[in-house]
């Protein structure tokens, strides 16, 4: 059963299933929490469960409603957002108009807005009226990993449903059957994001990016050679953050228990002994800040070169 199969969000899922069981769905929910921990999946399954006629508090996954929602062709379920661009006012107006009509098939109407924080302000404002006085039988699910970027006026109209990073132990348990030897390192690299933990490319990509960073700062490769395009910038930043974090963790605790890149303990140890904790942690907070600034229109390639330059003393 799909809602029940979402990993590590037991309390949240229990809350959602309670809502379904007692048939008391509110008109608007905000699924919030870090990226990659199952919010979008939960929103999709919740939408199915709201319309599934087979099981009262979950989605069966095989009835006509569930199948069509999975295929994205259910007339009363709409999903917008989740693309690498802003959500525009026209899309919101289309949603408003569609919710203003009775359900095509007579049940509920469900709208899922992925990455709701990418609504531009005109779109968000256009949504307010519908969120304030939602038409009967409609449920709007906003999904956001950065709810603080949503206008207060939107947040205050939605019931917040929090999702939390999945505890490492649970990820390990989930990984055990399929990724025997890799379960531990994968659970560390995933940092609570179940969808990342099962990514087959996870380790390979980590190695590629981390080694790329190090080659570039040592002058073994040109920055332009390893730069694969603007959509990679987040991956590079995350890699750099994890590495710096590991160095600080080692310097502070002297133990490998807290490391993300636990399989690279020796290299971390070496880097930790070369630099001081203050310098590394201030560099770390700077990279965090730059990462935050990326949502404004920073030139990604220049940002990347800047990060390389700043990393040089630590990674060399």
């Amino acid at each position: 059963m799909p809602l029940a199969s979402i990993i590590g969000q037991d309390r949240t899922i229990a809350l959602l299933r309670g809502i379904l069981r007692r048939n008391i769905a509110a008109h608007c929910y905000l699924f919030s929490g870090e990226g990659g921990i199952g919010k979008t999946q939960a929103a999709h399954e919740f939408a199915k469960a709201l319309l599934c006629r087979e099981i009262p508090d979950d989605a069966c996954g095989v009835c006509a409603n569930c199948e069509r929602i999975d295929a994205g062709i259910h007339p009363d379920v709409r999903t917008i957002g989740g693309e690498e661009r802003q959500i525009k006012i026209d899309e919101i107006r289309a949603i408003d108009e569609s919710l203003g009509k009775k359900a095509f098939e007579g049940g509920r109407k469900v709208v899922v807005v992925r990455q709701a924080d990418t609504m531009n302000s005109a779109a968000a404002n256009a949504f307010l009226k519908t969120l304030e006085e939602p038409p009967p039988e409609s449920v709007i699910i906003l999904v956001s990993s950065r709810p603080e970027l949503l206008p207060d006026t939107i947040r205050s109209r939605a019931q917040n449903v929090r999702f939390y990073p999945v505890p490492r132990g649970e990820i390990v348990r989930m990984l055990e059957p399929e990724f025997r030897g890799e379960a531990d390192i994968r659970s560390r690299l995933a940092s609570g994001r179940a969808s990342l933990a099962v990514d087959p490319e996870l380790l390979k990509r980590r190695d590629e990016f981390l080694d790329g960073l190090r080659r570039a700062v040592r002058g073994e490769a040109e920055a332009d050679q390893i730069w694969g395009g603007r959509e990679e910038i987040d991956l590079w930043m995350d890699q750099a953050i994890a590495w710096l974090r590991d160095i600080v963790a080692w310097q502070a605790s002297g133990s490998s228990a807290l490391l993300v890149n636990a399989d690279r303990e020796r290299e971390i140890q070496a880097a930790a002994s070369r630099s001081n904790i203050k310098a590394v942690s201030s560099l770390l907070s700077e990279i965090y800040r730059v990462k935050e600034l990326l949502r404004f229109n920073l030139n990604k390639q220049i940002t990347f070169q800047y990060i390389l330059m700043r990393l040089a003393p630590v990674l060399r």
Partner: protein
Amino acid sequence: MKLTVSRESLLKGLQVIQGIVEAKSTISILSHMLLSSGENGTTISATDLEIAVREPLEAAVHSTGSACIPAKKLYEIVREINSQEITIEQLENNWINITGGRSKFRLIGLPEKDFPQFPDISGGESITMAASDLSDIINKTLYATGDNDARYSLNGLLFHANPSTGRLVVVGTDGHRLAVASKDLAASLSEERKVILPRKAASEARKLADSTANDITISFNNNNLVFSVDGIVMISRLIEGSYPNYEQVIPRNNEKRMKGTRTELLGAVKRAALVGREKTFTVRLEISEGLAVFSSNNPELGEANEPVEVEYSGEPLTLGFNARHTVDLLQAMNGEFVTMELQDSLIPAIIRETGNTDYFCVLMPMRT
């Protein structure tokens, strides 16, 4: 599935659904139509998730089945093809063969199971009316509905069937003008029905009514309104919410009556509006005994003055109207004479086809 149809009947069937299939929908299945033949004969279905249409198609069926075919493309092919008979055959992997004369087309279809389910239309109560009557009442009210209004309920026509008065009343308004048309209910309903039909569906229903001479059946269901005639079934989703209480805005004490020839008034308003201010579109109407003068002035262009002889006896009166709204309603009317019922310059005017009690419009005046 394999069947042979005459080009003419297929073309006619495809024409009916062209207004409904969306050429550039985000959901690709909606630009397709479902052609299916089974025990109940062959049918064509199409939907844009607001309106769904199913119509019968006369065909010689060689083998039964269903296929989703790109509707616009098929229409274009059938229109151009040089043969009286067309054969449509479904192949593996949703490929569709279309042959007629020497032409052969192979189109990529979609799996039949992806096509939206046809809504459940059982159990509603029905009324019947002449197609020309339905076309007429939609025609007389549709122009007054809102377009993309944030108050959703205004973006459609109210169909109010009231068994206690025995009337079907159809209302359109956008808050500035109101049109009310009514007809006798031919059947008795067990309860009062008030539904709001979206604008696009109303316009498709009018097209459907214009295409036939037979009586149309209108069924009221919980979530939809169904129009059926000649085997064609058209279902529309309804607009949620309640319609504003339009009766409140109908003025009660409009005792001044002005009667004029409709086409003369229409022409006068159109001409007077030519030099009007484009943004506000106001025309001024000055009425005195026996004469109505439409005028407009625009500081950048100049003035226009259009006198029309009318029947009027009473105090002289000056009002302002939105020219486009006035033109719309005079165009939608079809009697020879119209009567305006007025009170003073800030009270809405009631406009009727003289002698017709089944139809009237209310027009908000503008300050001149």
